[in-house]
């Protein structure tokens, strides 16, 4: 799209001590995954007939999708609403979304009892338009495709004119080179179609993800069960998108020895009070309209959890983002963004697990060590893959644009 991104692969050693920690966590996750795929879901989870869904849904899927919202929110800001100053954060956010959704799908395969049937929603004879999960599944599938298409320009930039496949693949060099040139010529023209599609698909499935639990009104705590759950999920996705961008950008600056991009992140955080206001006020109005406000003071542990979620995760950062001191200070900005991420993660866990009350509950659900290990392994893989991509593809904004003299890439 716009032509003033100067991004380049980060030059540094791939394997550091931190990377090896990730490898170790992935290995532990793989061991438990091996048990899951040979002995069944029951062998590595505390799921049963009362508690059919655990953290693989609440964290791997629900939080995974929510925290990947940086991708569509920044794409919308920079490309649809033409806030070009946010251009430097679009690519990192896109990569996070692309890898995040990839990990969501891998996590889903662990949770599906018949994972080999994962393609069934694409078969017309099995379509069920009345199922919320069908809508989520189809949108996620299309959106993942869109994300990989949006990633293609980074591939062409990196390899165009430099295709040198080794050994037996050498005869393919010409073909691959031609393909990249074709992408290069065409993608820029049609990319807007995919960018808008990505935003629309995201709005659709972010909200539908919230509609999932609406079907269990008799099994949900009334503080969380409401017909406006889809709207609340969409609004909180809008909130957490920019916060994830701030969070990641700060962490990446530290990991890759760069200066925090405050000149981009500061202005970005200006929209957060507005977004958080919409979420908090919708939530408060919903409680008031349903006559459930009194439950906040009923002293139950659920009301305590709810107050922490809303107070620490949304109201506190809402107030913080108002202050220009917070918006100018890397440390405070990072803190406020982290609080919103905490709030949204807690909200998803609350909706899918804390609020869930089996009709004939004989126990509480707490994740099995195997569930924790696989979830941790997936998160480690996400960070590992992110590091690999930013070290090998032009993702990160280059501070002093070292554009090659004379020849400037004509596309994006």
């Amino acid at each position, binding site marked *: 799209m716009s032509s003033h991104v100067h991004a380049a692969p980060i030059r540094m050693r791939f394997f550091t001590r931190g990377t090896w920690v990730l490898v170790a966590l992935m290995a532990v996750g793989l061991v438990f995954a091996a048990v899951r795929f040979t002995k069944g879901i029951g062998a590595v989870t505390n799921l049963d007939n009362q508690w059919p869904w655990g953290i693989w849904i609440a964290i791997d899927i629900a939080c995974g999708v929510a925290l990947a919202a940086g991708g569509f929110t920044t794409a919308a800001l920079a490309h649809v609403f033409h806030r070009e100053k946010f251009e430097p954060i679009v690519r990192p956010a896109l990569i996070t979304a692309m890898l995040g959704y990839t990990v969501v799908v891998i996590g889903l395969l662990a949770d*599906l*009892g*018949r*994972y080999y049937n994962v393609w069934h929603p694409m078969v017309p004879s099995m379509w069920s338009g009345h199922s919320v999960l069908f809508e989520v599944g189809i949108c996620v599938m299309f959106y993942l495709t869109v994300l990989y298409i949006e990633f293609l320009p980074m591939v062409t930039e990196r390899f165009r004119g430099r295709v040198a496949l080794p050994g037996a693949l050498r005869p393919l060099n010409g073909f691959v080179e031609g393909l990249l040139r074709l992408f290069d010529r065409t993608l820029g023209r049609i990319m807007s179609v995919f960018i808008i599609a990505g935003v629309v698909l995201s709005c659709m499935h972010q909200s539908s993800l919230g509609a999932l639990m609406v079907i269990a009104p008799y099994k949900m705590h009334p503080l969380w069960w409401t017909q406006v759950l889809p709207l609340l999920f969409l609004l909180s996705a809008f909130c957490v998108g920019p916060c994830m961008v701030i969070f990641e950008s700060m962490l990446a600056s530290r990991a890759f020895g760069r200066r925090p991009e405050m000149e981009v992140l500061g202005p970005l955080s200006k929209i957060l009070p507005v977004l958080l206001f919409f979420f908090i006020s919708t939530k408060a109005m919903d409680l008031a309209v349903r006559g459930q406000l009194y439950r906040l003071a009923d002293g139950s542990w659920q009301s305590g959890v709810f107050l922490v979620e809303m107070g620490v995760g949304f109201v506190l950062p809402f107030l913080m983002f108002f202050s220009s001191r917070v918006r100018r200070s890397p440390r405070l900005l990072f803190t406020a963004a982290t609080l919103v991420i905490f709030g949204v993660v807690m909200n998803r866990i609350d909706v899918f697990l804390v609020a869930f009350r089996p009709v004939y509950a004989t126990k509480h659900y707490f994740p099995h060590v195997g569930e924790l290990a696989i979830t941790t392994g997936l998160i480690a893989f996400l960070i590992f893959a992110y590091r690999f991509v930013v070290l090998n593809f032009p993702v990160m904004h280059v501070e002093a644009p070292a554009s090659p003299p004379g020849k400037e890439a004509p596309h994006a």
Partner: protein
Amino acid sequence: MDRRDFLKTVGAVGVGIAAADASASTAVHAPPDAFGVLVDTTACIGCRKCEWACNQVNELPVQPLEEFENKDVFAAMRRPDAGNFTVVNQWAREGREGNVWAKVQCLHCNDPACASACLVSALEKQPNGAVKYDPWRCMGCRYCMVACPFQIPAYQYADALSPEVRKCTFCVERISGGERPGCVEICPVECLIYGKREELLTLAHERIGAYPGRYVDHVYGEHEVGGTSWLYIAGQPFTSLGFPELGEQSPARITENIQHGIFRRFIAPVALYATLAQVMWLGSRKDEVAAAAKGEDHHE
């Protein structure tokens, strides 16, 4: 790219999305000729023969019939599971000495939340009343288990290769062939009565009307979550027999109304797409004009 190209591509995508509209039906699935079973809990003697017959018919792990005469199992409330599609629970009789029993199994809702939840139509309400499960379609997501207001579907968590969602089948093969379900067939005291749901409802109200001292005036399953194929009458409130208190609307109606409201003819997503496209195009126009006014040369 110029405006016309842009709008053309945008339009093509919009039409494509609209054509993919697969969600047209809002019908409530309450088959007129559905069969059902009326459970008269005041007649049940807690013999558990229905459990044995169910295991036989459905080829579940089964012990000799004598094992089912063991009354110790009544010490704790049991739930159906992947190897037992029906269980009988014992409850204290209200107002008098002694016990009452209530058989538990899938109630085969008229408008089942499990089938509405399923994304691959692996659970479907049949015209004969049964909510039938097709393991070949199933992905094993267990959303049906989340959705069921009666906590009925069970899962084969120990099976790594082809786990199934398990629940009462309403002996769908038997009833399609004109036979009665296994549990009804064996019941020695006619506590279980099989027939057309409409006729069973009439019978239930006749019994309640004829013996008002014997029954509470409530046919469980007549209205609960949109009605169920299995119906219960009892001599005491159903909450004292382990039945959940439920409203008259099926949870499926709530989500499907939201879902069909948002996606009716795909108007909302297409409108959002068109709006964003317009915003995007206007913005790029403005940028170009501004750049031209500044006298800068701009590419593309």
